[in-house]
């Protein structure tokens, strides 16, 4: 028989492994969603750069496909791994989050360039905050993309949307791939 100190250590080991398994499952699911949003953002910014006239339509399409895709990936992963990720509470939080962003944009009368900077930073803020609970990869992706977005806003001239296609879109894709390995 073991003593209570050894039992405590064994249970701590169990809890540590359980935490790591859950984090790994969340990373796996999140990486798929992040890669998808990266590809969509890349396309959205590329259309904005090449055909600014169609930018509005492109971004509406990006958001519709992105939200539908996120729900579909979550549902698919749930059927495979049993991990429940999509909840009404989460959807409500997302809607409130976007509504607040729209309110800020309306209040601030942002220029297209400022809008293109605000939304990625706003979403990356949520990533970083979530990462404090979920895992450091989220914080790293959030802060990295935010820094590169700000560099683009202040230092990249007319090619800002092209910069954002690679920084925001490419950054999310690379971040998602990195997350799958971690």
């Amino acid at each position, binding site marked *: 028989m073991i003593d209570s100190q050894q039992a405590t250590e064994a249970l701590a080991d169990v809890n540590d492994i359980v935490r790591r*398994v859950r984090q790994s499952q969340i990373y796996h699911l999140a990486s798929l969603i992040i890669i998808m949003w990266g590809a969509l953002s890349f396309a959205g910014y590329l259309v904005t750069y090449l055909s600014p006239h169609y930018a509005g339509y492109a971004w509406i399409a990006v958001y519709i496909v992105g939200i539908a895709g996120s729900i579909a990936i979550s549902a698919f992963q749930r059927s495979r791994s049993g991990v429940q990720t999509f909840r009404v509470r989460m959807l409500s939080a997302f809607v409130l989050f976007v509504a607040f962003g729209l309110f800020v944009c309306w209040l601030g009368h942002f220029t297209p360039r400022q809008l293109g900077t605000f939304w990625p930073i706003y979403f990356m803020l949520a990533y970083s905050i979530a990462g404090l609970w979920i895992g450091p990869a989220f914080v790293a992706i959030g802060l990295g993309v935010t820094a590169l977005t700000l560099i683009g806003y202040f230092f990249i001239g007319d090619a800002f949307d092209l910069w954002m296609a690679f920084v925001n879109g490419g950054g999310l894709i690379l971040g998602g791939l990195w997350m799958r390995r971690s």
Partner: protein
Amino acid sequence: MAELDDIIHQPLRLRIMAALNALPTSVGLEFSKLKKLTGATDGNLGAHIETLSKAGYVAVEKAFVGKKPQTTVTATAVGRGAFARHVATLQEIIAASGGGK
């Protein structure tokens, strides 16, 4: 007080069972993922999975994904029960010493 499970009690086997038990029933982990999560080496992990498999605590499934062999390990119902009892015993030991308060 119930006895600790001798098979699960070994530290690496405890970690393997904890990882598999954290998943929903019938969902397993790939060998490489399990290796990463438990911090074990290939040989060590393989030997302990073999022990757990012989006890009927885990099921091992080997398949090919493309040309790559893939080994998936899943906790059986017997294994889940044994793990739950083992953890309960650990908690009893702590509680008996007043550590759980």
